């Protein structure tokens, strides 16, 4: 469980990145944190594993104040997969890459080897196990970065911009991975501005702007609120946007439609 209470954060150069942020994320939730670049999303999630400590306020992970533990101890609970896989691949082979974190966390040799096998299998990377990470394609590198975090089985997984620059097929793969994590009972936090992606995969959305949370709620509530999306400088997803416009013009009676089939049903009544 993540508990953030009235957190402020200021970088060494004086930039204020968080301006009083409070939130709770419960076990097993799937949450998207959205907002434009510079809204404070990444700064916020870096507080979850103690990479950053609040200038003011507290962050607690499973009841532990992040100020009292090292990044390594917290990372065992909160695994963060950063945006660019090329910033987080350190080893000579794919296998070694996954082993790297397992060794840092002092797992025993037999656990290490079984976890490596498991992670490679889930991410469909088995055939590359002895290859250099840098010979993989962009999408495969991304999956390897996820595998290296997944292998040590953190309770909470944070994905920073998992779909940025990915093609449609890769996005589908990432979507399957998220589903899998959901079934494993993980708490998942996705930092993104890919609103069409979020629409189908998360339950709750937190909107940020200027280092503050400006909205936090169920996805239906947030994604059909065009005004609030605009405040977060997001482009509304197409179907909710269209539904909102049709509602305004009096064509349909509901304004909280998210999916194509829902809208089709409403339209069939009229057309």
């Amino acid at each position: 469980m993540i508990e953030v209470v009235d957190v402020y954060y200021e970088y060494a150069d004086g930039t204020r990145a968080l301006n009083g942020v409070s939130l709770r994320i419960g076990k097993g939730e799937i949450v998207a944190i959205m907002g434009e670049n510079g809204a404070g999303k990444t700064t916020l999630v870096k507080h979850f594993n103690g990479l950053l400590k609040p200038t003011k306020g507290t962050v607690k992970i499973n009841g532990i104040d992040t100020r009292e533990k090292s990044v390594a101890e917290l990372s065992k609970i909160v695994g963060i997969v950063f945006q660019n896989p090329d910033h987080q691949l350190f080893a000579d082979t794919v296998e070694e890459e996954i082993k790297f974190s397992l060794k840092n966390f002092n797992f025993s040799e037999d656990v290490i080897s079984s976890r490596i096998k498991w992670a490679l299998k889930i991410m469909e990377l088995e055939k590359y196990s002895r290859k250099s990470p840098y010979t993989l394609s962009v999408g495969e590198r991304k999956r390897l970065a996820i595998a290296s975090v997944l292998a040590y089985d953190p309770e909470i997984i944070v994905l920073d911009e998992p779909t940025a620059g990915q093609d449609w097929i890769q996005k589908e793969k990432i979507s399957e991975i998220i589903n899998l994590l959901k079934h494993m009972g993980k708490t998942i936090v996705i930092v993104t501005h890919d609103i069409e992606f979020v629409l189908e995969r998360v339950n709750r959305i937190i909107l940020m702007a200027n280092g503050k949370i400006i909205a936090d709620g169920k996805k239906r509530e947030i994604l059909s609120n065009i005004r609030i999306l605009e405040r977060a400088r997001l482009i509304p997803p197409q179907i909710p946007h269209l539904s909102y416009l049709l509602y305004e013009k009096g064509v349909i009676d509901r304004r909280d439609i998210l999916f194509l089939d829902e809208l089709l049903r409403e339209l069939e009544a009229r057309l």
Partner: protein
Amino acid sequence: MSFLEAFSYRRKNTFIHLLDPRTKFSILVSITLLSLGFFSSLIQLLLLSFIIFLLIIAKCFREWLRTMRSMIFLLILIFILNYLTVIHNRFEYSLSMTLRFATLTSAFSLFFLTTTPDELALALESSGIPRDYSLMFTLALRFVPTMARDINIVMDALRSRGLELDKGKFKERIKNYGYLLVPLIIYEIRRSLMVAEALEARAYGAVKNVKLYRPLKMTMKDKIISVITLFLSLTITIISVLCQINLPF
């Protein structure tokens, strides 16, 4: 990183900022020459106060002060080391060496705080150095902050994967930092390729004799200041060497 702060350019509209980079360079050279040429701690102190005076005009005093504060430990170390190794005139000697170090650092800090990498490159180009080299210089400086940011990102990733960078014995720590190098080197090689592509796309190397958008021009003000500084510092140096003056202090 606070140490580097004193050497990265701040845009301000002051008398010093607007001087030609070559003028500022002549001031830098003169101060360096005088500081190295004279031993007396009083002279070092005079030079230092002169630089501080210029820093105040350039509105960069605060940036300089912050760096000096982070260097206090180093300055004390210089003092102690000198004090322990020298036999005669220990105090005066150590003080002077320490002040000399502060003076030289401050002089360079003044120069870099008030001169953009572009201006520097332009100064190089205007003094006949080929465009390839001046561009190399521009790029090297340009990508320092970008690389610093990359280092931070990679360090965050390493720490998030459970590596405790500063834990363990010296040898282990060195090994830990080795992990940092793998993604960084690969990343920077890729970046250099991307930069090279972008340069090609901007027709770099199309024409041998390029005309510059804003060629540097020494104004009368610049000429006067450079001539005076260089003349003064040379005169002082020559006189002191010729006459072997033993100044009373």
